[in-house]
């Protein structure tokens, strides 16, 4: 594997509150190679979006990176002063968020927004920036980009708006794109188009993509590797095929079982879905030992007392004591 583009080690995100410190992301480590799509999947409150926000330096106070390191192309970016971080953001890291409407300014044409972004980050003249904006819109699949440049965000449909947001994120040719639920607000037919677009861009430009989503289906189609998060920790990380077809962590097993699928045969109604009992713990009540232990059907004594570290297994890692023996 080539040198990682993004390297996160032992990242810890805390929220100090009057009633004590909440740990929302608790010692997670992973890396992404150039051209690779890493899926980060988990349910609400798992800490996946906060991980993304920590990387682009947009954690909302009082949230803060309390420990760990974030390196982009070998350079540490988690301790940069705000002004320098602002230049990293946009120039070297692009971000795509869930709701395309809130990511765009309704008062400016999309052309103005694209040109401004390009002028901020690249050393181009106004005319060249405009040409680049047209090129970008064409690249993300907007028909008649030259005419569309002078339109306002409300004149675009949801799918087209998300394409504009992607064009904005790519404006300065970033090395890393963080996409947080980029398809969640879109209809299924549009979802497929946006996923195909993200995949193509990663491949063609060698851009690393961190794709944050709760939708395993999107991960299965897009990601090369996937990290499954639970209660601020990575439960399992590995090649997407391995994690989906042969999940190791009991949480991943339960998660995969609870996803409804269209059965191949006809009329298979009323197959009971596998369900994980209970719900994700609140941040102020994360259990001792393994965070998943109260809901885990296979827990034993060690899980209650000791937190499992990531154990290397074949191509991936899993944080579960069940596999402790296998490793030795």
């Amino acid at each position, binding site marked *: 594997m080539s040198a990682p583009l993004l390297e996160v080690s032992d990242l810890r995100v805390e929220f100090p509150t009057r009633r004590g410190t909440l740990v929302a992301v608790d010692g997670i480590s992973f890396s992404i190679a150039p051209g690779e799509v890493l899926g980060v999947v988990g349910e609400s409150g798992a800490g996946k979006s906060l991980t993304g926000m920590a990387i682009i330096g947009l954690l909302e106070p009082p949230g803060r990176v309390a420990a760990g390191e974030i390196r982009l192309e070998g350079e540490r970016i988690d301790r940069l002063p705000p002004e320098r971080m602002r230049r990293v953001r946009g120039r070297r890291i692009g971000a795509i968020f869930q709701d395309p409407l809130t990511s765009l300014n309704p008062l400016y044409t999309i052309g103005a927004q694209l040109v401004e972004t390009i002028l901020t980050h690249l050393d181009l003249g106004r005319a060249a920036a405009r040409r680049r904006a047209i090129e970008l819109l064409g690249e993300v699949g907007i028909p008649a980009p030259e005419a569309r440049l002078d339109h306002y965000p409300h004149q675009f449909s949801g799918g087209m708006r998300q394409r504009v947001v992607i064009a904005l994120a790519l404006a300065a040719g970033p090395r890393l794109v963080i996409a947080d639920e980029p398809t969640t607000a879109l209809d299924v037919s549009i979802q497929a188009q946006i996923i*195909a677009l993200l995949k193509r861009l990663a491949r063609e430009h060698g851009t690393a993509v961190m794709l944050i989503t709760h939708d395993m289906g999107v991960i299965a189609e897009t990601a090369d590797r996937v990290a499954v998060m639970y209660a601020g920790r990575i439960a399992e990380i590995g090649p997407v095929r391995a994690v989906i077809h042969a999940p190791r962590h009991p949480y991943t097993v339960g998660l995969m079982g609870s996803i409804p699928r269209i*059965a191949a045969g006809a009329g298979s109604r009323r197959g009971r879905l596998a369900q994980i009992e209970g719900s994700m713990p609140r941040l102020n009540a994360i259990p001792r030992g393994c965070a998943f232990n109260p809901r885990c059907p296979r827990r034993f004594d060690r899980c209650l007392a000791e937190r499992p570290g990531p154990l290397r297994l074949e191509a991936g890692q899993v944080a579960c004591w069940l596999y402790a023996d296998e490793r030795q």
Partner: protein
Amino acid sequence: MSGNDRALVRLVAVGRDFDVSRPWLNRVLEGAPRKLLRAVDEVSFEVTRGETLALVGESGCGKSTIARLIVGLYAPSRGTIAFDGLELTDPARAAEAQRARRRMQMIFQDPYASLNPRWRVRNIVAEPIRALGLAATRAEVHARVGELLRQVGLAPEDGEKFPHEFSGGQRQRISIARALSGNPEFLVCDEPTSALDVSVQAQILNLMTELQRRLGLTYLFISHNLAVVSHVADRVGVMYLGRLVELADAGEIFARPRHPYTRMLLDAVPDLDMTGRSRTPVAGEVPNPLAPPAGCAFHPRCSHANARCEAERPPLALAGHALVACHAVAEGRIAP
């Protein structure tokens, strides 16, 4: 469609328009005409007692409008809606219709918005019991609320808490308990699990299936998620731009989708098993419902469209074991 007595709910050529014109003064000054949004148009179907009929489609297809029309949150602009043989839209029988509506309840998508944050859960669940006079004494109400909470997998003591003390899935359980407290026969569920995480969604879907079996409920299940629908539905109706384009048994529709739009929707479901099946990228998006295409509304996105599709609106007609509104299917231009 001919009726049968097992039909609990019957819609005949139901339509609903929304007036989205600019304010009167603007219209007068600018000479702009009235603008009507046809949210639902000529929709006919029946829901049989004890079954789950699912309506699927993308945003703006009119599925939620139908849910609201049936429970009476909107009045239809055209057509009739009957419940257990009684025409709900007949002004002469308004009193009866009001009584009949007590036998139906609705579950909404967002459990954060559908529960009053200032009420204790026991009062939220008890409101329909009190409003419909289903219990004589306080003690009876109390006992019934406890029983309902147990039925949806909560504890009777949870009634003392406020909604904010519960997670999304638990709140949806409270919504279900409230819907059940009026002893309904018919539940309209509008995207009941779309706001929930998958593992919680599984819990709620299992609970709904279990309750249906135990209480003999009839469901109209509105969803955009075909995989969820394939798990709960007996029959499936597919909607596009306010119209029903295909209606068939669930087994039939998932094994042999006929309408090009149904096929497209199924193709667009992410391939979780990674069989290597590539998604057929869909051209275009749902058109603006204010200016729907002439003829078949799907024709601009359809690879089988011809001149007839552009001019003539296809009626819902029997094709094999399904009702399909498509000229290409009716003419045999699409291989079944």
